[in-house]
């Protein structure tokens, strides 16, 4: 057990590649991070940055072929999940690590009553009897705020609204009291008022159960209010990681900085919006050097030539950039040292 350092999850040098007609896509290429018990980690990035593949790799749901976890370790509670048999990993999934996805309609079985889908979980993982499972299912639906849970349990997924379906998904994910909840864009398909409800719900449940959470999203606003630590991904790499508060206040990477500036701040006067030029890279054909170099406003000759170092800026603040310290200093960081 890894109880000493308080790490529930430790990912070391994870690499997940996909074989495509277009060449080898290094969707996740050598990323490492830790998650402490009871903490929430945010992973932000644009499409194709590797944020979802990272999490599918953790629970070993990468379709193989074409995908393959080519190297790395995923230490969960002292145990490397990548070394487990298929049988053993199945006992971890849903029981100790649960996931909720962006689209609750496609993650629920349309032909099964909600209650049945919830009962399956605890009957399988906790050995509940029918009656126990049913009582537990109703209790879980009440916990996530489904009104009139006893009656609604016998409805089918299509009879619920998008927000209610996401609540059902959360009820299902939490029904075996997992140690880790991975939420992949859980509110992206929802309206803002419903998003606010679901985020509040995740926050409250997290406080009550002590579950650790990995929250994957493209929305910097969502991670700002929800997470303790943050990882910014680009082209399959971690570009910056650190405490959420520090990362927002003192970004040490030009990509993070650009991303933060390109979100309109509704509380300020509206000037011209900063824009990162160009397009995200084609991960199948990365050139040597920094993958962000063609879009970077701080780019120098070295950036096109050499892959950047992962620079430590502060206790647990790292940035992948040749000029990490300069960028960090510009943001106002590192003045004390």
């Amino acid at each position, binding site marked *: 057990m890894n109880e000493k350092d308080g790490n529930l999850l430790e990912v070391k040098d994870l690499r997940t590649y996909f074989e495509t007609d277009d060449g080898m896509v290094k969707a996740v290429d050598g990323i490492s991070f830790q998650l402490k018990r009871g903490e929430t980690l945010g992973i932000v990035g644009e499409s194709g940055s590797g944020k979802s593949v990272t999490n599918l790799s953790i629970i070993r749901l990468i379709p193989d072929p074409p995908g393959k976890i080519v190297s790395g370790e995923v230490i969960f509670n002292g145990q490397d999940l990548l070394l487990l048999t298929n049988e053993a990993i199945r006992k971890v999934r849903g029981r100790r690590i649960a996931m909720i996805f962006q689209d609750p309609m496609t993650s629920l079985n349309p032909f099964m009553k909600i209650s049945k889908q919830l009962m399956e979980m605890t009957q399988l993982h906790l050995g509940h009897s029918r009656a126990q499972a049913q009582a537990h299912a109703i209790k879980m639906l009440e916990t996530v705020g489904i009104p009139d849970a006893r009656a609604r349990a016998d409805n089918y997924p299509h009879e619920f609204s998008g927000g209610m379906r996401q609540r059902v998904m959360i009820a299902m994910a939490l029904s075996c009291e997992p140690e880790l909840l991975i939420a992949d864009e859980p509110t992206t398909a929802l309206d803002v*008022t419903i998003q606010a409800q679901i985020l509040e719900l995740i926050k409250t449940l997290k406080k009550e159960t002590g579950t650790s959470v990995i929250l994957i999203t493209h929305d910097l606003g969502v991670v700002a209010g929800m997470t303790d630590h943050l990882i910014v991904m680009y082209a399959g790499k971690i570009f910056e990681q650190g405490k959420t508060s520090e990362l*927002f206040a003192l970004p040490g990477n030009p990509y993070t900085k650009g991303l933060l500036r390109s979100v309109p701040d509704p509380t300020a006067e509206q000037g011209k919006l900063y824009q990162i030029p160009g397009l995200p890279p084609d991960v199948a054909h990365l050139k040597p050097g920094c993958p962000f170099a063609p879009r970077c406003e701080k780019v120098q000759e070295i950036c096109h030539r050499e892959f950047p170092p992962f620079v430590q800026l502060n206790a647990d603040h790292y940035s992948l950039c040749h000029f990490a310290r300069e960028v960090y200093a510009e943001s106002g960081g590192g003045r004390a040292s």
Partner: protein
Amino acid sequence: MSAVESKTDRAPLISIRDLKVHFDLGGGGVLDKLLGGKPEKRVVKAVDGVSLDIYHRETLGLVGESGCGKSTLGRAILRLTEPTSGQVIYRDRDLAHLSERQLREERRHLQIIFQDPYASLNPRMTIGQIVGEPLETFRLARGREAEERVQELLETVGLSKRFIKRYPHEFSGGQRQRIGIARALAVDPDFIVADEPISALDVSIQAQIMNLLEKLRREKHLTYLFISHDLRAIRHVSDRVAVMYLGRLVEIADAKTIYHEPLMPYTKALISAVPVPDPQIEATRQRIVLEGDVPSPINPPSGCPFHTRCPYAIDVCKEVVPQLVQIKPSHFAACIRISPSQPNIEDVAPGDAPGLESGVGQVR
């Protein structure tokens, strides 16, 4: 004159009057009655009596949650969806009542950009054909001249003119959206409905498209109806903002006012729900979390459509349909619990409905 017309310092480019779009879902027919089907006629009132002026060279933001009717309203203005009743006045002509042929002439001046850049471009046509098609349809240019015009359009939207022979699948989402914009610009329109133009795009690309639309508006003197559920984007691009809920406009004001001094409880909740990309603000912020879902537009609540979720609702709200009236200069809201003399709902005595006396509501 209704209240929404009172801003007379500028002439409106488009005036919408009591526009309704109702979709018939069937039911209520003889067979339904005989065979025990749906005995009642079921109608979705997607747009239910919207009056709105869109001024020359402004960006009017239209915001609301899914199912509120914002896209239907945008489409009904261009008659891509047939309005059930009401008027859309453009250059002294009522678009809602033009014949097909007359409408086609006017359409040249009225264009639309769609949300999904993947679904809105014909995959079998080259970029040159896609952007050039409107030129041909309206006989604006042909041959060499058309080709030059297409190249010019591609450069205007920030694409290389070398792309002319390529197909849509070769482009990313952001680039496809630029192609869609180039196509809309081909006919030199006055007015563009931008229906969720950035929702399907990555954050860094959203900023690019917003800046491009703003640049084009300035250079080409365009007027936009910018439809989005994203309040941060709406606040950024719009001069004025209209908030829609269940087929009706519930508040209109300039963008800054809507964000900083909203009057309607719904608008307040909507703004409060938007996460701010700043951990310090988020840590201390008290959020108004609305209970429940948006009610179904098939069977909307009586009276004020928002009363089922409104923290300020009183019994009268279930009966009276609030009308959109001017509460402050150029600031319109539809709520019987406020009035020009008592604009702040927090200060109104519990149970009072000052709007009723000043004729804000009407009993349905």
